[in-house]
C-alpha cells in the first residue's frame, strides 16, 4: 500500500476514500433538482470554510444504507477561474470522495462533457447522469447511453431530475460502484501524441520526486502544470519540497515545446483537445431524429430582450415583484386569525406585542429586568423576526424567476447601464428590493438577492450601496419630519429623497469600484439558459433554506447586539428624585452612556444641526431605523412607542424653536444614508464572508451621511 503510485494506476481503488458521493455539473444542468430527488430534500446548507460558496449536504438512502451526498457548486470547468471552480476542484482532490456523479445536460452535451472530461482527468470513480433527457428527446435527439458509457468507461444513467425519472436507477448504480460490483474508473484522456508524451514524462517526474505521499493522480497534476495553473504550482511545492524547482523547470520546457509545435499556448491546446473528446463522443452517440431548434425560448427572447419590449417587461416584472412581496408579507391581511385576518408580518408583530404585554406587570417590581426583556429580547429579536415573511416571499419570487431563466435576461438587458457604475445587470434586483422604488423595501432581502451575481467584486459593490435605498424603516422618520416641517410638499419631498438615494448609491458604487474594490472589470460571459416552468418543490425548498438560515444566524447575533445596545441605553441609572420617585424614561436615557455619548458628540453633530437628543435617537437607529422615532419620542417625553401615534411628536418638533425645516431635511438625509441597521450589517458580514466589509459599510456610509447632511444644512443656512 505504501509503494509509490504508478502513473495511470493510482489511488481510486484504494479503500481510504471517504464514503461520500459528490454531485458535480454545469450550472443550469438541473443539478439541484436531481440532488433534491436523490436526498429526498433531507439536506443541510453550510458554507465551505472561509468562503461564501455554499455547500449542501444530504443523505441518499439505498436499502438500509445511508450514503452522504454533497452538492458541489455548479461550474463549467475546473480550471480555477472562479471561486466556485476552486472549491469544487479542491473538494474532489482533497476530500477524496468515493464517487463523483456528473450531471450532464443531455440537450447540450458537448459543452457539458467538457467538464466530464476534466473529471476523467482526475481519475476519480465517475457516474454520468444524463439529465433533462426529456428535453433532448423533445428536440429530436436520440442518445445511445450504452455506447457513451463504453466510450468514457463510466456508467451513464439517463435522468429527469425535475420529475424523478431515472433517480432509482442512479441510486442503484451509485451503490453498485461503492460496493465494487460496477466499474466506474474512467478511460484515460488523450490529447494527441505530442501532448500525451509530455504529460507522461511530467507525471513520471512528479512521482519520482514526491517526498510526501502523493494522494492524487500525477498525470492530472501534469496537465495542470501545462495549463500554468497557479494552484498546481502550490501543490508541487507541497509534494516535491526542495525538488520543486526540478519539476517546474521540466514543466516550463514542456510548455515551450508544445507551444512551438502547435503555435498556440498550451492551455488553449489542452482545452481544445478536451472539446475534441467531447465532440467525438457526441458524434458517436447522438443522432438527430428530427430537425428542431429551441423555438420557444427564441420566440420568448425576441420579445423579452427586444429593444422596446425588453425594458418595458423588465419594469413590469420588477414592479410586480415589489408589489407582491410587500403586499403578501405585510400590507394585505390574508391569513385567517381568530375570526379576523392578519398579514404574516402582522401576525409576528401581534405575537411580539402580546409577549410584551405579558411582561408589562413586572415593570414596577423589576424595572431593570423588565426593560432588558422587553427592549432587547422581545422587541429587539422580535423586530428581526418581523423581516421573516418579507425574506420568504422575496426569495420565493426571485427563486422562481431564476429557475425560469428570466434573471439571466435581466442581467443581459441591464448590464450596459449598470456597468458604468461598477455593478452589473443583476444588481438592479438587490437595489429594488432594498427600496429602490421609493416606497419601502428592505436591505436585508436585498443583500441576500445579490446571490444571483456571479462576479465577486460586482456583488460586493452592490451589497455596499444597497442600504442607501429608502427602506420601509426609514419611512416613519420621513413621515414625522415631513408632517412637521413640509406639510405642503409631501410628494415633492418623497420624490427628492428617492432621487437622492439613487444618486448617492450610483455615485458611491462608482467611487467604490474606482478606489476600494479595485481591479480589472471582470469579464461577463454568461449562459442564457432555455426558459422553463419553475419546479415548485425546488423553489420552495430553496426559499425555506434561505429563510431558515436568516432566522438562525441573524437571530443569534442580533440578540447579542441588542443586549449590548440596551446596556448602552440603560446604564448608568440616574438616582431617584428627592421625592423618592424613580427617574422617567427621558431622564434615564439622557443619563445613560448613549445619552452622554449624544452630549459628547454634540459639538461635532451641531454642524449638521443635530443636538444631543437627535444624537441619542440616531444612535438607537443602529439597531433598526424604526427606533429613531421611538427614541426621539422618549427624549422629548412623548410616549409614541406605546400609542403608536406619531402626530403629537410631529407637532412637538414643529413647535420646538431649535428645529427648522433645514435641520429636518439634514436629518432625513442622514437617516437615509448612515450606517445600515444591525440586521443589514449582519447580513453584509455573512454574505461578503467577512466582518471587515460589514465594518467598512458602517463607517463609510456614516461618513457619507454626515458630509451630505452637513452640506445640506450649511447650504440651507446660506440660502436662509
Amino acid at each position, binding site marked *: 500500500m505504501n509503494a509509490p503510485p504508478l502513473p495511470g494506476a493510482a489511488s481510486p481503488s484504494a479503500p481510504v476514500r471517504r464514503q461520500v458521493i459528490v454531485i458535480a455539473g454545469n450550472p443550469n444542468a438541473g443539478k439541484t433538482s436531481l440532488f433534491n430527488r436523490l436526498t429526498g430534500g433531507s439536506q443541510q446548507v453550510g458554507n465551505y470554510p472561509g468562503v461564501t460558496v455554499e455547500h449542501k449536504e444530504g443523505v441518499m438512502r439505498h436499502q438500509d444504507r445511508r450514503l452522504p451526498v454533497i452538492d458541489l457548486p455548479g461550474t463549467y470547468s475546473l480550471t480555477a477561474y472562479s471561486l466556485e471552480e476552486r472549491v469544487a476542484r479542491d473538494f474532489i482532490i482533497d476530500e477524496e470522495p468515493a464517487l463523483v456523479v456528473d450531471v450532464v445536460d443531455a440537450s*447540450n452535451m458537448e459543452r457539458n462533457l467538457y467538464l466530464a472530461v476534466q473529471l476523467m482527468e482526475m481519475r476519480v470513480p465517475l457516474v454520468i447522469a444524463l439529465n433533462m433527457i426529456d428535453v433532448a428527446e423533445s428536440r429530436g435527439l436520440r442518445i445511445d447511453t450504452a455506447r457513451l458509457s463504453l466510450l468514457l468507461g463510466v456508467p451513464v444513467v439517463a435522468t429527469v431530475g425535475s420529475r424523478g425519472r431515472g433517480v432509482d436507477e442512479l441510486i442503484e448504480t451509485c451503490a453498485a460502484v461503492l460496493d465494487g460490483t460496477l466499474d466506474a474508473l474512467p478511460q484515460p484522456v488523450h490529447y494527441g501524441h505530442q501532448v500525451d508524451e509530455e504529460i507522461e514524462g511530467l507525471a513520471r517526474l512528479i512521482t519520482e520526486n514526491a517526498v510526501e505521499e502523493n494522494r492524487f493522480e500525477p498525470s492530472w497534476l501534469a496537465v495542470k502544470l501545462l495549463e500554468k495553473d497557479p494552484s498546481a504550482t502550490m501543490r508541487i511545492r507541497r509534494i516535491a519540497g526542495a525538488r520543486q524547482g526540478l519539476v517546474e523547470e521540466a514543466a516550463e520546457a514542456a510548455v515551450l515545446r508544445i507551444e512551438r509545435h502547435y503555435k498556440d499556448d498550451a492551455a488553449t491546446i489542452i482545452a481544445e483537445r478536451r472539446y475534441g473528446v467531447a465532440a467525438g463522443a457526441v458524434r458517436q452517440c447522438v443522432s438527430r431524429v428530427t430537425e428542431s431548434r429551441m423555438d420557444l425560448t427564441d420566440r420568448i*427572447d425576441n420579445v423579452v430582450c427586444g429593444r*422596446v419590449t425588453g425594458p418595458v417587461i423588465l419594469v413590469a416584472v420588477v414592479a410586480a415583484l415589489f408589489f407582491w412581496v410587500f403586499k403578501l408579507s405585510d400590507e394585505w391581511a390574508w391569513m385567517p386569525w381568530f375570526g379576523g385576518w392578519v398579514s404574516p408580518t402582522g401576525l409576528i408583530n401581534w405575537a411580539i406585542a402580546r409577549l410584551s404585554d405579558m411582561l408589562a406587570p413586572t415593570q414596577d417590581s423589576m424595572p431593570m429586568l423588565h426593560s432588558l426583556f422587553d427592549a432587547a429580547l422581545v422587541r429587539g429579536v422580535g423586530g428581526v423576526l418581523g423581516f421573516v415573511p418579507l425574506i420568504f416571499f422575496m426569495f420565493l419570487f426571485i427563486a422562481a424567476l431564476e429557475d425560469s431563466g428570466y434573471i439571466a435576461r435581466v442581467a443581459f*438587458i441591464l*448590464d*450596459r447601464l449598470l456597468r458604468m457604475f461598477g455593478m452589473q445587470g443583476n444588481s438592479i434586483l438587490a437595489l429594488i428590493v432594498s427600496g429602490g422604488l421609493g416606497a419601502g423595501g428592505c436591505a436585508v432581502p436585498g443583500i441576500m438577492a445579490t446571490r444571483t451575481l456571479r462576479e465577486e467584486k460586482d456583488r460586493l459593490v452592490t451589497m455596499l450601496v444597497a442600504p442607501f435605498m429608502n427602506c420601509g424603516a426609514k419611512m416613519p422618520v420621513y413621515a414625522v419630519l415631513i408632517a412637521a416641517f413640509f406639510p405642503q410638499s409631501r410628494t415633492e419631498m418623497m420624490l427628492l429623497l428617492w432621487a437622492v438615494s439613487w444618486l448617492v448609491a450610483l455615485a458611491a458604487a462608482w467611487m467604490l469600484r474606482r478606489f476600494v474594490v479595485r481591479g480589472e*472589470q471582470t469579464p461577463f460571459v454568461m*449562459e442564457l439558459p432555455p426558459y422553463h416552468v419553475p419546479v415548485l418543490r425546488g423553489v420552495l425548498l430553496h426559499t425555506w433554506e434561505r429563510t431558515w438560515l436568516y432566522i438562525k444566524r441573524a437571530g443569534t447575533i442580533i440578540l447579542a447586539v441588542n443586549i449590548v445596545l440596551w446596556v448602552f441605553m440603560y446604564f448608568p441609572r440616574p438616582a431617584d428624585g428627592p421625592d423618592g420617585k424613580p427617574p422617567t424614561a427621558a431622564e434615564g436615557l439622557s443619563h445613560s452612556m448613549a445619552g452622554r455619548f449624544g452630549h459628547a458628540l454634540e459639538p461635532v453633530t451641531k454642524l449638521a444641526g443635530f443636538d444631543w437628543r437627535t444624537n441619542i435617537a440616531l444612535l438607537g437607529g443602529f439597531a433598526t431605523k424604526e427606533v429613531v422615532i421611538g427614541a426621539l419620542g422618549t427624549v422629548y417625553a412623548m410616549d409614541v412607542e406605546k400609542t403608536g401615534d406619531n402626530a403629537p411628536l410631529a407637532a412637538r418638533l414643529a413647535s420646538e424653536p431649535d428645529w427648522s425645516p433645514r435641520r429636518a431635511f439634514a436629518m432625513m438625509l442622514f437617516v437615509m444614508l448612515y450606517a445600515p441597521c444591525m440586521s443589514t450589517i449582519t447580513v453584509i458580514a455573512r454574505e461578503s464572508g467577512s466582518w471587515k466589509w460589514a465594518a467598512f459599510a458602517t463607517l463609510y456610509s456614516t461618513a457619507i451621511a454626515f458630509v451630505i447632511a452637513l452640506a445640506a444644512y450649511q447650504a440651507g443656512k446660506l440660502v436662509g
Partner: protein
Amino acid sequence: MKTTVLTLFDLVNGQTARIVRIRNTGPKGIRQRLLDMGVTRGAVVRVERHAPMGDPVEIAILNYRLALRMNEAREIEVEPVTP
C-alpha cells in the same frame, strides 16, 4: 494578406461565422473563461441579438446561448460562413 481582421464585434444579428482565433489582449482570465464556455477555434457561432443598449451580445454556440460583452467580442476573430 487581409488588412482588416473581422471579429465577433463586427457581426450583425443573424450572421454566422467560424472562430479563427481568440486574442490574448483582453482582461485577464477572459481567454480561459471563453475556452471553458466552448468558444474555441473552429467553433461555429451565430449572432442572435444584441441587448437593448447594444451591448452585450447573445450568440448561439454548441447548441446553447451565450451572452458576452462587446469588449470581449472584440477578442474573438472570426470568418463569416454561409449557413
